[in-house]
């Protein structure tokens, strides 16, 4: 009961903060928070696969990048909500095709297949003229919604916050559904789950498609926020980022990757302003979390709860 009241309070606070932020923050600060939101959604989608279903995908940038390029290619033709839905659908279809083949393998072999698909798309993006090569696609038009132009920082912030909010709600619904429970069951013991009559591969494919779709949505929002998409959106580092975020926050929880995304974006932002060698310091922070807090930041809360309970 107390947990439910706290969750309601946190949700109300998040909605009020989202509504007030454009009045309180500068354009640069709004962009920072847009980046945080997009990465939160991306980390949640990846954690559905790795943290909850136990599927070690190293190629999620493929779906993020496909969503981003879909927006980059069609922003002048299709209004944002429709284009974001199309980006999700495209990423989901790609995930269905990749997953149908890749999920015939397991463990490290599966991870390598997904990595290879991501790298293949990255290489293709460099050589397909319509995708702009190295320079990518610049000048992405944010268009308008109900005759309200989304070019301004505040208007786009509301669109971004609404899309991420709905995305988080959808992923929470998946997490809390029977489907989500089954994913965790087959992560814990796939053999036992199979011998309860469950088609393990079909459920894994379902998780892969859902994660791909929301990775595509995150990619699409990323392209709108930056108003440019380059091959960097498909690079293998882009597949590693959300895994690091989920590890920092806590992979075994639903909310951990969101906290991890905030910490990761904030740390990279802060260090990149201080030193050109910022990646080194981000690496040290990551090592700290892996060694000292392997279950992530949210595990501190559960330790505290256990102590106060004992």
């Amino acid at each position, binding site marked *: 009961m107390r947990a439910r009241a706290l969750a309601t309070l946190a949700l109300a606070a998040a909605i009020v903060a989202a509504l007030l932020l454009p009045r309180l923050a500068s354009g640069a600060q709004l962009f920072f928070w847009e980046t945080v939101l997009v990465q939160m959604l991306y980390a949640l989608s990846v954690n559905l696969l790795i943290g909850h279903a136990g599927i070690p995908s190293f190629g999620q940038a493929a779906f993020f990048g496909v969503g981003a390029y879909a927006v980059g290619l069609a922003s002048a033709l299709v209004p944002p909500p429709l284009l974001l839905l199309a980006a999700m659908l495209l990423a989901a279809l790609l995930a269905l095709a990749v997953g149908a083949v890749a999920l015939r393998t397991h463990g490290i072999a599966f991870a390598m297949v997904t990595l290879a698909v991501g790298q293949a798309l990255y290489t293709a993006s460099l050589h397909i003229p319509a995708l702009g090569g190295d320079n990518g696609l610049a000048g992405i038009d944010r268009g308008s919604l109900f005759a309200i132009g989304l070019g301004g920082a505040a208007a786009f912030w509301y669109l971004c916050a609404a899309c991420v909010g709905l995305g988080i709600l959808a992923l929470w619904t998946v997490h809390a559904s*029977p489907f989500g429970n089954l994913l965790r069951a087959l992560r814990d013991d796939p053999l036992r789950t199979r011998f309860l*009559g*469950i088609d393990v591969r079909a459920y894994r494919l379902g998780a892969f498609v859902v994660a791909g779709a929301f990775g595509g949505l995150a990619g699409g929002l990323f392209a709108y926020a930056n108003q440019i998409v380059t091959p960097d959106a498909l690079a293998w580092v882009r597949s590693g980022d959300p895994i690091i975020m989920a590890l920092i926050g806590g992979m075994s929880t639903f909310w951990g990757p969101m906290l991890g995304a905030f910490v990761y974006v904030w740390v990279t932002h802060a260090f990149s302003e201080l030193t050109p060698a910022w990646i080194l310091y981000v690496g040290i922070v990551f090592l700290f979390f892996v060694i000292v807090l392997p279950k992530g930041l949210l595990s501190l809360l559960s330790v505290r709860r256990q102590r106060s309970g004992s």
Partner: protein
Amino acid sequence: MSALHVSDLVVRYGANRALDGLSLEVESGELRAVIGPNGAGKSTLFATIAGETPASQGRVELDGTDITRWAPHLRVRRGVARAFQVSRIFPSLTVRENVLAAQLCAQGGSRVCWRTVLGAEHARSEAALAELGLAHLAARRGETLSQGDRKRLEIAMALQLEARLLLLDEPTAGMSPRETAQTVALIRSLWERTRITILLTEHDMSVVFSLAQRITVMQRGRVLCTGAPEEVRGRHDVREIYLGRG
């Protein structure tokens, strides 16, 4: 009518034949033990019947239906339940939740699995826990159970699947003498009450001879003989290859 009919089953691992033209027939409602020395192919036979290991050749029929090429989850839905040599339960769930998970999975996977549990389902799981002597452990997490309790929980889960054929792979392995006696009594009472077809392997001959109606002896991937316990015990060739002389 035979519940399980295995004919001319061959399973190859490279050049080796783990099963080499094995044929076996188990009557509906029978409690059959399969014994044999290490490497005889007992575990491969179980894995092939369950669909975990593909057959290179031959047929597996369940109640007259050819299931040789069926995926494991489809065999489970058809009525094949399995308990493993090293018990497999969900360690992070409680004993009660493990039984409920099995019960709900049996009803149709994700459409009902771990949805809000109905009163009747609670009652059924509590009855199963009481029958298997696990009621006092219902709130304990699976990972905290002893080996004997884990095995009993796994049998309780298998029974929730409304199976027609129960495969028990070494059901008393790793148990203390007291736990072994309890498990033997449990399997016997379950079988007498439900008359489910049970196929079990076991290294402990006292368990085999006290439980089985008939015993199949395997050697080098083939059936050496099948018969009543006294008959098998009296066979010279069985004593030689498995039970030892004298």
